[in-house]
């Protein structure tokens, strides 16, 4: 996984400098909204290049998806039928499926940074429109939500209503300085340490020197090193994304909350890549369980939930790419959740929880489960 968006100190500093006008505008009591929307344009050019294949795909993608979104927006009031919703949802998925499958064709250079995360925001809009949560789809607000630059390439995945609330308000001066500007700068600083300090060093001094030939020892070292590397790299990216969003007045959600302190895998997903797991929770797991219970597909709620866990995690795995190791990874994480659920409902767990060593032992065990999952995710076991 590469996060090219904040990939170098240069790009982070440059982007931070472009935030200065936004700061001045907010401090003089003006809304940042329009500056933010304008700022998206040079930032996208910087990310993709003006006359690049990536930019072309991005523009075509956005135009098509917006035609679809607005088509649905106007049609849904006239045609109140579920089939329209399913067709729109399926059509909105066509680009990402085609692009992901292109790795098996001569067109494997197709794709652009952020397509997955932009798709999450678009599907969210389709579902929310279907559920009648969106009364008015304002063009500028919506395009800004979908292409909001700070979180474009890898999240955190925001929610439409939350985003709009922040977007349309002017924050009082003192509040802005303390809770947006200083907070944001602090996060960008932390991101520097995480990504260009810790993640860089782990990669440079532990992962890169490993021999090409995989031995048991090198695999174990790689497993732990990659787990820590991925955390510092992704949490570092998230610090940048969150920090810059705040300075632009958008209090986007968090992505990490000390994931390696989790006591079990259920808790892990409440601490790791939070915006993604909540998205999958709301839009896949809960809907799957709710619909299967409504239609009485499963006899017990427990079964519905466990099948839901497997389905959700499998989708999450495949979403990363059409490779065998992502499927294995998804199944592994799904199974881990099912086992965790059985464990949490057992008497052993209730007894164990009372013991002094509970915190320490469960965290150490959980970390091994996490690290093995990361090893599967890295594809290391499948590359020789």
């Amino acid at each position, binding site marked *: 996984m590469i996060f090219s968006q904040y990939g170098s100190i240069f790009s982070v500093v440059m982007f931070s400098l472009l935030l200065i006008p936004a700061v001045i505008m907010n401090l003089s009591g003006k809304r940042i909204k329009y500056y933010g929307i304008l700022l998206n344009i040079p930032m996208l050019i910087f990310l993709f290049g003006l006359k690049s294949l990536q930019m072309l795909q991005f523009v075509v993608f956005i135009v098509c998806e917006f035609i679809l979104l607005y088509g649905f927006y106007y049609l849904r009031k006239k045609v109140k039928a579920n089939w329209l919703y399913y067709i729109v949802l399926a059509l909105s998925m066509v680009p990402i499926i085609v692009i992901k499958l292109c790795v098996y064709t001569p067109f494997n250079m197709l794709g652009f940074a952020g397509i997955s995360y932009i798709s999450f925001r678009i599907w969210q809009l389709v*579902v*929310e429109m279907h*559920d009648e*949560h969106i009364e008015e789809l304002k063009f500028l607000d919506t395009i800004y939500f979908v292409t909001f630059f700070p979180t474009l390439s890898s999240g955190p995945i925001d929610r439409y209503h939350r985003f709009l609330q922040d977007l349309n308000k002017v924050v009082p001066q003192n509040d802005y300085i303390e809770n947006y500007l200083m907070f944001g700068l602090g996060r960008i600083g932390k991101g520097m340490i995480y990504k260009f300090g810790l993640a860089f060093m782990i990669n440079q001094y532990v992962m890169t020197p490993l021999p090409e030939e995989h031995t048991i020892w090198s695999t174990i070292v790689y497993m732990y090193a990659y787990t820590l590397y991925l955390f510092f790299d992704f949490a570092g990216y998230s610090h940048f994304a969150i920090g810059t969003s705040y300075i632009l007045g958008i209090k986007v959600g968090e992505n990490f909350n000390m994931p390696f302190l989790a006591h079990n895998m*259920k808790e892990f997903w409440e601490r790791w890549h939070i915006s993604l797991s909540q998205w999958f*929770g*709301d*839009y896949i*797991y*809960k*809907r799957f*369980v*709710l619909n299967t*219970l*409504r239609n009485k597909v499963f006899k017990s*709620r427990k079964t519905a*939930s466990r099948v*839901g866990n497997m389905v959700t995690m499998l989708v999450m795995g495949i979403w990363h790419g059409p490779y065998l190791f992502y499927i294995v990874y998804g199944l592994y994480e799904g199974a881990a959740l099912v086992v965790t659920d059985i464990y949490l409902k057992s008497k052993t767990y209730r007894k164990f929880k009372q013991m002094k060593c509970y915190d320490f032992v469960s965290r150490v065990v959980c970390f091994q489960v996490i690290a093995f999952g990361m090893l599967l995710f890295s594809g290391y076991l499948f590359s020789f």
Partner: protein
Amino acid sequence: MENLKELALDIMEAACETDEVREDLDLDLFEAGLIDSLAAVVVLVELEERTGIKLQPTDMEREDISTVNHFIDFLEKKVG
């Protein structure tokens, strides 16, 4: 109002599978480990079975079911 309170308690008891929910109506159910994402779905299923009101998961925020009292407020808005 009394009815809503009973309805809220019945639904929460079924969803969390414990009558502990009756003891403190301001107890944070997430912090106490009594509620999880499955329980959140069961709340919707129970509500639908008891009142016929059909909701989607995103109709209900985490905050709405974090305590029994919050859930009573939520029901008041939805059931009226």
